[in-house]
């Protein structure tokens, strides 16, 4: 009977990218809520970012695949509560997002501005200018809004607070 350490499994999960935003791992995004190891059984608990996110099925398949490559037979359990929030995104994840050209969420979801649907300073991921304008609250995927930089004139995605 093979024993797996919790750390070893988390290290493997670090290698599973989000299909829509491949610079982020599912750990960076906070999608993995728990890893439960009982004897030789492993259960990975995940939560969806958005209810209609088409990437979730893909993520479950990819988790199973990478664990199987390492001879770990895992089951995936999806939970809805507590509901996923961008507050769970890791700091390194936010940094990676910015380098990828997507402005990471700027506020905690409990901030008043965020509750009112306003974000004061969404800076341009290219030139760091704060002179930006929201084009649309709904962007290329469920998790993003579309912005434009008034300085360098580039359009860019903003990973919205959720």
């Amino acid at each position, binding site marked *: 009977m093979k024993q797996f350490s919790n750390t070893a499994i988390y290290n493997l999960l670090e290698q599973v990218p989000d299909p829509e935003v491949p610079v982020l791992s599912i750990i960076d995004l906070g999608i993995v809520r728990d890893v439960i190891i009982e004897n030789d059984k492993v259960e990975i608990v995940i939560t969806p970012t958005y*209810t*209609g996110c088409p990437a979730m099925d893909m993520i479950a398949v990819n988790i199973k695949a990478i664990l199987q490559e390492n001879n770990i037979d895992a089951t995936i359990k999806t939970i809805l509560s507590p509901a996923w929030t961008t507050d769970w995104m890791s700091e390194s994840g936010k940094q990676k997002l910015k380098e990828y050209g997507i402005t990471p969420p700027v506020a905690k979801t409990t901030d008043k501005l965020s509750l009112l649907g306003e974000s004061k300073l969404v800076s341009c991921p290219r030139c760091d200018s704060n002179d930006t304008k929201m084009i*649309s609250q709904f962007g290329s995927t469920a998790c993003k809004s579309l912005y434009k930089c008034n300085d360098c004139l580039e359009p860019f995605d903003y990973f919205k607070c959720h």
Partner: protein
Amino acid sequence: MENNKLLFDYLLQLGDSSLILGQRLSEWCGHGPILEVDMALTNIALDLLGQTRNYFQYAVEIEGKGRTEDDLAMLRDVSDFKNVLLVEQPNEDFAYTVARQFFFDSFHYLFLSELQHSTNEQLAAIASKSLKEVTYHVRFSSQWVKRLGDGTEESHQKMQNAIDDLWMYVGELCEESELDKIMSKNKIGVDLNKIRPNFYQEINDVLQEATLKIPEDNWNQTGGKNGKHTEHLGFILTEMQWMQRTYPNMEW
């Protein structure tokens, strides 16, 4: 068993409204007035579809007859659907779509805020999750009602026409069916009487800011929750279910 049947029907009632509205919005895909709006409408459709899946997955689980979420969406007929009549009304023009969305979102937001406190844990979890998404929906549709209502003479008139024409389907949102009464009483569902005043207040505030008039006629067309639909639902299902009806049990 009896309780499970009630919960099952309630889940269908909630899921069907999201599913049909999602299907309606999907018709805009590639036809939106501008690209950003096209994306917004389909984003909202995707959220609604995701919420439907949550309701239906839970419904087939408690039913325990081996049906799947797809069976519920694709293999039921018009009279089996419990959605409210508002959501099956045609897109017509952008003003209609915005008006329909605004009425539904305003209701949906208040409804989910209450459903979060359901004594049924799974239902409460679905509600909290969905509420985050619907917050964006209601912002989007309210903003457009204001922009078009308080816009040009033409946009104002189109918006007012849409509000007037759809008004007779708005009352049903907060009208209790027998099932709503039972589910509200057993604390699993939402007390629609409780959210009704806030709902009309919200609509009133937005329409006023949009310089639009609330129609005076308060006659309501109802029946959707009991499976009695307008002629439009059949056409929606014909298109939505075509593949499964034509090639039963197909997979890809």
